[in-house]
């Protein structure tokens, strides 16, 4: 799930910056990453997020699960998100 203190700065081009004020780290992400971030609420599972993304975006690739998983892992490594073991 998203770390609560992290700031999402959305820009005009639908890209965004995720900013962690506690560490001063910032990363940029594209509109799909923004959509994923907004769904990382601790209630949805990763598979549920992927399903919603596939529904929301045209031309979703077959490898969406792998790509989104990698994206979420990167956020976790950089301290922008925490991972929980899925029980579902």
């Amino acid at each position: 799930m998203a770390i609560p203190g992290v700031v999402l700065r959305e820009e005009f081009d639908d890209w965004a910056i995720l900013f962690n004020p506690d560490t001063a780290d910032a990363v940029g992400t594209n509109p799909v990453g923004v959509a994923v971030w907004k769904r990382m609420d601790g209630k949805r599972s990763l598979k549920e997020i992927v399903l919603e993304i596939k529904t929301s975006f045209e031309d979703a690739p077959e490898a969406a699960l792998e790509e989104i998983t990698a994206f979420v892992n990167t956020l976790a490594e950089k301290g922008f998100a925490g991972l929980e073991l899925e029980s579902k």
Partner: protein
Amino acid sequence: MSAKLKNKIEPTASSVMRTPRTLDIEITARCNLRCRYCYFFNNPAIEYRDLPTDEWLKFFDELGSLGVMNVILAGGEPFIREDLPILLEGIVHNRMRFSLLSNGTLINDEIAAFIARSGRCDYVQVSVDGSCAAVHDSCRGKGSFEGAIRGIRILQRHRVNVAVRVTIHRNNVHDLENIAHLLLDELGLPGFGTNSAGYLGTCRLNADDLLLNIEERKEAMAILLSLTEKYPGRISANAGPLTDGRMWRRMEGARKQNAPAFHNGGRLTACGCPSSIISVRADGTIVPCSMLAHSELGRINHDSLVEIWQHSPALNQLRSRHTIPLTGFEFCAGCSYIPYCTGNCPGLAYTLTGKVDHPSPDACLRRFLEEGGTIP
């Protein structure tokens, strides 16, 4: 979703951000010193009064809602505000980081510990303009050197990141090597920044005594460029003799080789701040920059900041300044440096010429050379 996610952890590219990334805030109009070259005081455009705590806290809530990342608190002297801890808590509460620009003399253990505990301070900048009291205090007043050094040591003791700014003027240009030794060798700071006294505020009243003449500018450039070789990567500048020396070397080299224009050359491209930063005066008036304090865009808690940021005609005119070619100015007529020149600071251009949309005479290489200057 053809744009793959895994390679998209990279900065976005946009000329103007949707909301400001950074706020420069003059959190107070009060100061315990009266420095002879202060840009802040003696500006007839400014109403020198402070806002109450709750006004700022309300504004910080707005900044938090806009995703502002950094707040830089200046003044006046920000540590003079008795409510500074409350204000900093308001910034932290709204998920922002902060920096403070200070003369250092009012910093004590209590506030330094508070800043350190917050975990959100990028740096506290302390002004040091001399290697000893005789030089530093000549413009800042008796006891200010001792207070500044004491403030730096307190911050260091609490592991707060200290940034020092050296403002170069006629009284300290011959002390630069000693200043570098004090800051980098004796105090062990990782680096320091430099600029020079400019024709703004109180300095306008003391310009003849303080502003560098041509010979002193040459000397300051040469010394600073030499010091950057002695202390690689530890002396920086965004304006002043070091910036001029570096920039003018590039410009002269390009002119001699008849090189293509620089990517930002030939137009009023300086500076880029209005695409990511906006300022607020101590009385709550929103302005593009503290150096353009006369340009009133609105008031905090009365006008929407995002509305001003996105739609203010004055701000958007400033942002479009980069489209104005230098060839259109009589001031630049016949200048061979035009392809490599950015027109420099709009704030200094305004204070020196009365026009924002004009190149700044202060940073004009041709004029510097015509008046006897040489590039080190």
